[in-house]
């Protein structure tokens, strides 16, 4: 069943999320047509229960969709919207139309303003589901000041945002849903996106290593290059398994420690993979014109988004230290282990 979803979303993304479409959106073009196609596909409500018009799927079932989104360097908060819709439905809040991104970290609220740094997909989202610590709010991006000069990468879709005035905060609930913290939801999204983008970066690198000839043979024939690409393949494969573990849930929400494992390991892999992809591609890889940058820029951003490997490893380590009767092995075998779905 997973493969059927995965195959059909791959076909859809291949048609609508082309490198040209990504570049246009990064330069400020409208996302409306792309979003409408995603809306029409029905996938955006996949995690909402069937009784409320969704497909009632589990997180594990939609993992191939998230992976595919990453593989195509999706420029809109696709995974985030799917999870945000499920979350909003779960807390009985109305679900707005349009793309919703999630800001689980870095949001500050003062008396007269709310602000966040590097809101992931902030430039293409219409809503930000934001954790302010004391409450969770749904903020419209229309009406927010975008401080895009704060982001070093001009093509980035991440952006610092500020909402002025108390009218900005459209509070949903003083409580957070006990099963689904926005931090872990966001971690799962980024872990899966990294795994997908890594897969694409590896495919591009393998192609290039087979085509580019130096010293009379393809550079992929040189042992030093083979060794680098082998490391890249190992990390790509480990990132995918890590992301798959993050999505190992019989519900729409993640198991917290598995989300942590997924984001920690996928983030660690992201930088290694991006570095090797560029090393093999040489100067061509760092040009705007060649597609590699579409994926490696995201690998680096998604690594830092919602906590990097050290942050999530710290959470896992703290949980293990607190569980004083458990050995490390017992903790791995019980708390960090996949369950039958």
């Amino acid at each position: 069943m997973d493969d059927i979803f995965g195959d059909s979303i791959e076909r859809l993304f291949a048609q609508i999320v082309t490198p040209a479409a990504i570049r246009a959106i990064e330069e400020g073009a409208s996302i409306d047509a792309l979003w409408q196609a995603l809306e029409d596909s029905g996938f955006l409500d996949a995690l909402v229960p069937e009784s409320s018009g969704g497909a009632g799927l589990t997180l594990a079932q939609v993992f191939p969709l998230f992976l595919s989104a990453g593989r195509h360097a999706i420029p809109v908060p696709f995974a985030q919207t799917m999870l945000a819709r499920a979350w909003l439905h779960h807390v009985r809040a109305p679900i707005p139309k349009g793309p919703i991104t999630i800001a689980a970290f870095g949001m500050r609220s003062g008396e007269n303003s709310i602000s966040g740094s590097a809101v992931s997909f902030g430039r293409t989202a219409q809503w930000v589901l934001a954790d302010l610590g004391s409450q969770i709010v749904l903020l419209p991006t229309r009406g927010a000041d975008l401080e895009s000069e704060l982001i070093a990468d001009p093509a980035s879709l991440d952006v610092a945002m500020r909402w002025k005035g108390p009218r900005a905060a459209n509070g949903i609930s003083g409580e957070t849903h006990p099963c689904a913290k926005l931090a872990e939801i966001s971690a799962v999204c980024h872990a899966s996106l990294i795994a997908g983008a890594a897969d694409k970066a590896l495919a591009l690198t393998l192609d290039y290593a087979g085509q580019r000839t130096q010293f009379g043979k393809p550079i992929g024939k040189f042992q030093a290059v083979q060794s680098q690409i082998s490391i890249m393949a190992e990390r790509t494969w480990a990132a995918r398994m890590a992301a798959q573990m993050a999505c190992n849930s019989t519900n729409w929400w993640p198991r917290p420690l598995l989300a942590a494992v997924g984001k920690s390991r996928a983030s660690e892999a992201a930088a290694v993979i991006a570095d090797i992809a560029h090393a093999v591609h040489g100067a061509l890889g760092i040009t705007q014109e060649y597609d590699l940058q579409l994926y490696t820029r995201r690998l680096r951003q998604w690594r830092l988004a919602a906590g990097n490997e050290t942050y999530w490893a710290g959470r896992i380590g703290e949980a293990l230290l607190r569980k004083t009767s458990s050995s490390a092995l017992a903790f791995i075998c019980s708390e960090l282990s996949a369950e039958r779905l």
Partner: protein
Amino acid sequence: MIDTLELIEIPAEDEALRTEIRSFLSDALAGLAPDIRARSWMGFDADFSRKLAQRGWLGITLPPQYGGAGKSAFARFVLSEELLGVGAPVSAHWIADRQSGPLILKYGTEAQKSFYLPRICKAEAFFCIGMSEPDSGSDLASIRTKAVRNQAGWLLSGSKIWTTNAQHSDYMIALVRTSGTTADRYKGLSQIIVDLKLPGVSVRPINDMAGDAHFSEVFFEDVQCPDDALIGVEGDGWAQVNAELAFERSGPERLYSSMVLLETWLAHCRFNDAGNAVAAATLGQIVSWLAVLRAMSLSLTAKLAKGESPAIEATLVKDLGTEIEQAIPRLIGEVLGSAPDAPVSASLLKTLAYLEQLAPSFSLRGGTREILRGIIARGLGLR
């Protein structure tokens, strides 16, 4: 390119073994110092192996008709990770149980199976594997040890080196040349079971830098082996060796070589500096890495149990597994050494010192990292 792996949960009946094994091990290993346990599959203790055998935990996957327990590959996975996790001294029976037994089951004649397997299951026959030679390390096709057919069977001459446990073993399964020359590469190689008590066999233990003699050099001077010393098909030795590599490379033994150090350090952290953020992040880094690799290893166990041969994937797991095994002593050394004023127990330091010295071997044994990456590159279509 590289398949997505299925996430596997260990079946309940196999998982149920874990409690029994844990309770046995906590009694059997009580009082054994961590730096001794850290040796684990270098730790030789025939009495311990016999105790495991009495419980049916040797040859756990072998058929009952040959003395095995007839359990699944997942039962073996649980048993292996519990033994390695606490650093049980499994060295005596490890190779027989893990490699030689399954090899004999797969390629042996009925007589060979009936002769060797029950004794393996009772911890009465210990094995070593003769692969490397003084001039043949990673390039195994260049081996020169020869077995020449004669009227009495096979006349063996040559030598093997870096053979783990040869000095304690009853038998060696040796990869030898039975026809042709080194120019024929993998053609003409065969596997021979050598009784190490035969005249003409001599064993010279080699001390490692940690002070142990866990491997040896073995000399064969016209050793007359019987006709049924040949295991499998003459000339198929290389294919037979490779068929078992997917098993050898993807199991839990490629993840847990530094577990005793990790557990000892975890106890230290809980007692001394549970609030140390660097220690917590390092702990989390190690266990999350192990958790992902364990999921991969389990998934490959399921594939192997179904009769598939995920050779490239197994190679990836081994390279990643030895990377974390080697990283554990380095990472723990980093945290401990960053606070030179904090007290550290002698047993933790001894365990760390042992693993720091032996960790380089983790990516040498069973195929070096450089060889593995060549195999991966071939799997990716680069060669």
